[in-house]
Each structure stands twice: as C-alpha cells, then as structure tokens.
C-alpha cells in the first residue's frame, strides 16, 4: 500500500511564453490580475 509516482519536469507556462516572445503581452493582457501583481492571495477560513 505504497506507490511511487514518477514526476516529469517541463518548462513552465512562463518559460514557454517567454521563449515564444509572448510573455510581456500576456502579462499586459491579463491585468489586473495575479500575474501582473506576481502574487496570489488567499484569505483562509477564519480571517476577518
């Protein structure tokens, strides 16, 4: 009752967009959102 799951490492979405020259436009197009602000926010249960 134990199992190994092999994990693969691939270029991130950011890396692929950068390689395609699309990252800057992507960031601008998705404003205002977490990508432009470079963070995610979470308000866990119990947070006023």
């Amino acid at each position, binding site marked *: *009752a*134990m*199992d*190994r*799951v*092999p*994990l*693969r*490492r*691939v*270029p*991130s*979405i*950011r*890396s*692929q*967009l*950068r*390689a395609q020259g699309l*990252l*800057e436009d*992507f*960031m*601008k*197009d*998705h404003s205002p*959102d*977490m*990508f*432009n*602000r*470079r*963070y*995610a*926010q*979470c*308000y*866990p*249960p*119990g*947070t006023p």
Partner: protein
Amino acid sequence: SLRLGRSSEKIYNFMDAQYFGEISVGNPPQNFSVIFDTGSADLWVPSSYCVSHACALHRRFKAFESHSFHHDGRTFGIHYGSGHLLGVMGRDTVKIGQLVTLNQEFGESVYEPGSTFVTAKFDGVLGLAYQSLAEILGNPVFDNMIAHKIVDEPVFSFYLSRRTKTSTPEGELLLGGIDEALYTGPINWLPVSAKGYWQIKMESVAVQGVSSFCPRGCQAIVDTGTSLIGGPTNEILILQQLIGATPTNIGEFLIDCGRLSSLPHVTFILGGKEYTLTSEHYVRKEMFGNRDLCFSGFQAIDIVSPEGPLWILGDVFLTEYYSIFDRGHDRVGLARA
C-alpha cells in the same frame, strides 16, 4: 465561496508550475497529467463538454464512457489569474499508480477562459492540502486514501530534482511512505501550525548569516504547486536588493549571470535547523535565444493568514530538500535531498 458560506478563496498560480505526474479517472481508466499540489485540496481535470480553447489542447474526461461515474450536479469555481475556471462535480474511480480510490469527488472543468492553460503541459491539478482548503465538497484524494486504508501510512513525500531530462527521475511522489534512498541525514520534523496549507513555523530568514527577516518568527507553507520562494512584498523587495536583483517591466527580477558566485547565501531557520540556499540554488537560469537569463527565485506574494503573513517554500526550496507530509502526526519532515 459565498455558496459555501466561507470568506476564503484560493487563487491559483499555474504560471510557474513545472512538475507533474499521471493519474487516471474512470473505468475504463482515462489518463491525465496533473500537478500534485500541496497548496490546494481539489482534484480537477478538463471535461469533454469544455469548449474553451485551452481544453481543446488537453485530454478531457468523458464521463459518458466511464461505467463508474456518478453525476453530482453541483458546480464549482476556481479562481486563477485572468479568470474563473468553472466546472461540475462528480464522483468516480481515481487511480494513482496502483492505488485505487473509489467514488472520489472531483471536478470537471467546463470553462477555462483566457490563454493561461493553452500552453500548460498538464491537464489538471490534484490537491494534497487539508480539506479546509477544498472548493469541491467531499474528501480530498489523500483524505479518502487514509479513510479507506488505501495507504499503509498517512504519509506522502516529494523528491524534486533540478537535473535535466537526461537524468531520471526528475521527481517522485511517494504515496504512503518515505523513500530513504532519496535523502541523506536525519529528518527534521516540524509541526503543522494551521491545518489548511501545510503550514509551519519559521524562526527567521538570514542573508549571508545575518538575520534579516521575520526575526521573531513567522509562518511558512510548504507548497509543491509553487515554483519559487514567496514572501511578503516588503521583505522580498529588500531581499531582491540584497541579492542584486533588478526588476523588469513585467515584475520579474533579473540577476547578472556573471555574478552568481559572489551572491550571498540565504538561510531559512526551521525547527532550529538551518536550511541554506546558495545562488546556484535560488537563481533560475533560462535560455532565451542563445543566451542565459538569470532570474531571482524569490517572488513577492502577500498571503494573509490568522497567524500572520505567509512565506511559501516552493520548488526552489524543495529541489534541495526532500519533503515529507505526515497527516498522522500533522507534521512536515525535511531532509537533504
């Protein structure tokens, strides 16, 4: 979130995720690649009914082909950068390696707006955090594995390698135990301080041996779904200055690749033990054209928790340290990978 009567909301960042593995859903099994994310608690994959461009480029779950599928009828929504992923909930058999979970609640996304997922190499996400973070009603996958005694021990562990594709393994998730071949030295056990994320207390962060951040202690989460090391904006900006990183117009921080050997060490103090990263560890190199670009492995992320602002120990940290997530004792173990 209002439907669930909660004020909480997780916003996912899939932009930097790099490690994923295979699972199957349904009977006969339908395969999907998913991020195994300790920073969330839901399982979702694209639905065959999804008509978004992103779905067209990924494997989609065909509920009508599964003999074991149970329709739920409720909807769920997961917020991410530019939009709101929408889906419907269902139950079906989920297989991870040889471990089979029957009647697992999961989400089928029917709407994936924007272009975020278009280039994603993964189809969905399998969350491994505590149930309190779940958007989808029902037990998260690992909770069900524990409840139905599918795993011997209520423990899973991650090995993430920085090595290139020519070497194997690039990473491993071990469900139900610890792989002693993948780490050296003793395991340092850290109690979970809040059961949502895999959240632990961090004593301080030092730059070149000098305690610079959270000198009275702070909170950190161990998050395999995040690529970089995150921290409160004010502190990360100072840290970027200390390592000589320069901001770009899209909010990334560049470092001169020629200066790596002269950059300071950054040390995280956890459970009285020092976890030191050199510049080789915390700088990410990417080829752009025919030259290397060096990026800071730190990012500003303001996450509020009742215990205070959170730091996030993502892949940049976890590639150096084998991580063990122990639900039986609600603790995280770290050892040199």
